[in-house]
């Protein structure tokens, strides 16, 4: 039976190919002793590549450049070692991200692994990071579950807060603006139907109610929506003084542009991710003034200005005003922890958890493995995205309500 011979031959071929290939792939790469190997697998292609390319990769590149130009990572004995980078593309797929971390940990035996972009991907790799004993400095992961995750993965660190932090801060601002008569109590909210948008709107509903606000328009729209004429027209006629969009780019940009055309100029305009991106000022020009969003920076901080200048020089793009500086600060945290306790990952994790660090965000100390000293709300004022909440903190600007009219 020739069929059987063919099956046999093909099977033999398959097994041989598989064995050969797997051994090819699992070949050990030799670590040179005088460098520190830092690995990361991030989305260089696919739908996540835009966010990754704006917030995550430039800061990894900048940090490695800064460290290596200074002679390398400092170790406790005063010696310095250069950083050697090993990078992979996870192609915006969770499965690839997981496998890439396995590769970094087992094949490349890197000293430290930097996290990918996005909540979902940080969670996907968390069990493996924990299993292999790598500290995970998750920045671009906004989740209210962080306290639970810290229990589950002791070496995980969460740097960007949770959805309710942001929505409560916004509710507070709106509540007091309403009390002082700057705006009516009506709020129109739209949110993108993905993890981020739903997290925020879920916590925003009770928070707004508590602040004495009424949601007169509350809709979600699917990820990938490009046209917002219908939504904005309805929001405009809802009678609300406040328009809130828990949105993602490019939706954020589309909404801003179309609001302008529609002459939809609410007293408070709060949009989601993307407002802090450099491209937003290019799109809106002077009309960024008064637009609010998540994050923000202290516009007078010299540290931030220096960082922004370095960032622009090294990557030809300015940093975003929300997670970029936090990403860089997380890397400084890692750098200083290594300087204090060396390359032992357990010790580094312990140091990050308990130590105090001097970063571009000022002195930071994690609470229960989370960075809590963050800016929750920002607003475009005088050409920079100034932090307005918590307003009790040093460096906070005061919020401007109502926002200026569109220029045209």
């Amino acid at each position, binding site marked *: 039976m020739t069929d059987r011979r063919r099956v046999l031959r093909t099977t033999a071929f398959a097994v041989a190919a598989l064995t050969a290939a797997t051994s090819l792939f699992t070949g050990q790469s030799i670590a040179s002793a005088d460098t520190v190997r830092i690995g990361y697998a991030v989305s260089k292609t696919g*739908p996540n*590549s835009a966010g990754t390319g704006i917030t995550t990769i430039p800061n990894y590149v900048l940090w490695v450049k800064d460290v290596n130009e200074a002679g390398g990572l400092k170790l406790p004995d005063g010696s310095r070692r250069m950083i050697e980078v090993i990078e992979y593309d996870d192609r915006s797929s969770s499965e690839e991200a997981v496998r890439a971390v396995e590769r970094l940990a087992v094949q490349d035996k890197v000293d430290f692994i930097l996290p990918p972009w996005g909540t979902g991907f940080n969670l996907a790799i968390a069990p493996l990071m924990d299993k292999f004993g790598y500290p995970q400095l998750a920045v671009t992961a906004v989740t209210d579950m962080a306290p639970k995750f810290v229990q589950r993965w002791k070496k995980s660190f969460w740097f960007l807060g949770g959805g309710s932090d942001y929505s409560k801060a916004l509710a507070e601002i709106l509540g007091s603006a309403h009390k002082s008569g700057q705006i009516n109590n009506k709020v129109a909210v739209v949110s993108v139907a993905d993890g981020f948008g739903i997290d925020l709107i879920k916590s925003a509903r009770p928070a707004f109610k508590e602040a004495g606000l009424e949601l007169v328009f509350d*809709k979600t729209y699917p990820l*990938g929506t490009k046209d917002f*004429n219908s939504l904005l027209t309805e929001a405009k006629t809802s009678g609300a003084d406040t328009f809130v969009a828990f949105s993602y780019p490019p939706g954020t940009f589309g909404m801003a*542009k179309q609001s302008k*055309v*529609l002459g939809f100029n609410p007293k408070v305009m709060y949009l989601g991710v993307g407002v802090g991106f450099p491209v937003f000022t290019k*799109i809106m020009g002077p009309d960024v003034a008064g637009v609010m969003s998540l994050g923000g920076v202290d516009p007078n901080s010299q540290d931030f200005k220096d960082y922004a200048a370095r960032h622009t020089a090294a990557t030809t793009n300015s940093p975003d005003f929300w997670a970029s500086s936090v990403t860089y600060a997380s890397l400084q945290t890692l750098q200083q922890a290594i300087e204090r306790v060396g390359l032992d990952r357990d010790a580094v994790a312990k140091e990050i958890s308990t130590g105090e660090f001097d970063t571009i965000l000022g002195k930071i100390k994690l609470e229960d493995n989370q960075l809590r000293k963050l800016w929750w709300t920002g607003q475009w004022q005088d050409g920079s995205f100034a932090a307005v909440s918590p307003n009790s903190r040093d460096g906070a600007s005061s919020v401007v309500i109502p926002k200026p009219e569109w220029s045209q």
Partner: protein
Amino acid sequence: MLTTSLVIGLVLGGTYALAALGLTMQYGVSRIMNLAYGEFVIVAAFATFVLVSTLGLDPLLSLLLVGPAAFVISYAVYSVLMAPLVKRSRKGGNLEIDSILVTFGLLFLIQGILLVIFGADFQSYSYLNVAVDLFGVTIAANQVLAFGLATVLGIGLFLLIRFTRWGLILRAVAHRPDNAPLVAINVDRVAQLAFAFGGMLAAQAGVVISMFQTFTATAGVVFTMKALIVVIMGGVGNFLGALIAGLILGLVEAFVSAYLDPGLTLASTYLIFLVLLLWRPQGLFGKSVS
């Protein structure tokens, strides 16, 4: 309220139709299932962006530059990548499958090149982003332009195909590629020209869409898929069908958003597409294959 949704829907649908005209040409006449179609749209958007931001060129003028350039490039792409496959298909190969595989590769190739040159960042500029009053509904001038262009091109091409000699030749190649040579039509040449012309239409859609939509190097696939849906819905190779199908999708989106739930806009466009296909398996204006 009704007029508002109607105008918003029609204008949005115009964009969909505009982005699909080139594909209906490429697939309908040249029989190339071009999965890299959306990349042609995006490349044109990037080209316009570069022309606008470096040379300060008016985007409408860049239409005159980018369009012909896309024609030449598509013509060349056909010579290099498609012509050998067409030749091969006569000897028992399958053009449809081969073209799917090759253009799938082309999709990644173009995307990769864009990523290396421009990075993954969002790109945008503003042009004609001013309000126009259309039957009491406020809408952006650039979107009205897209709608106008789609209508003119859609109807114009339909008439061209229907009533001119050129159109007759195109129809002959589209429907009877085996018999066309009998009446002295050079099928290869017509197919190549049609492919190039389709590329030009894609580029013009890209130029106009870049005036109001933010785009990235990886955004092409979305355009390909939307265009495919419009093309299939309207009937392959039928420009009027593509125009109407695009408008239907836009209207469905606008009305669902206003009267049902904005969360269901995309679901309903797919649903309409699926239902329509079940009702008329060859699309709205498609000719039955059998």
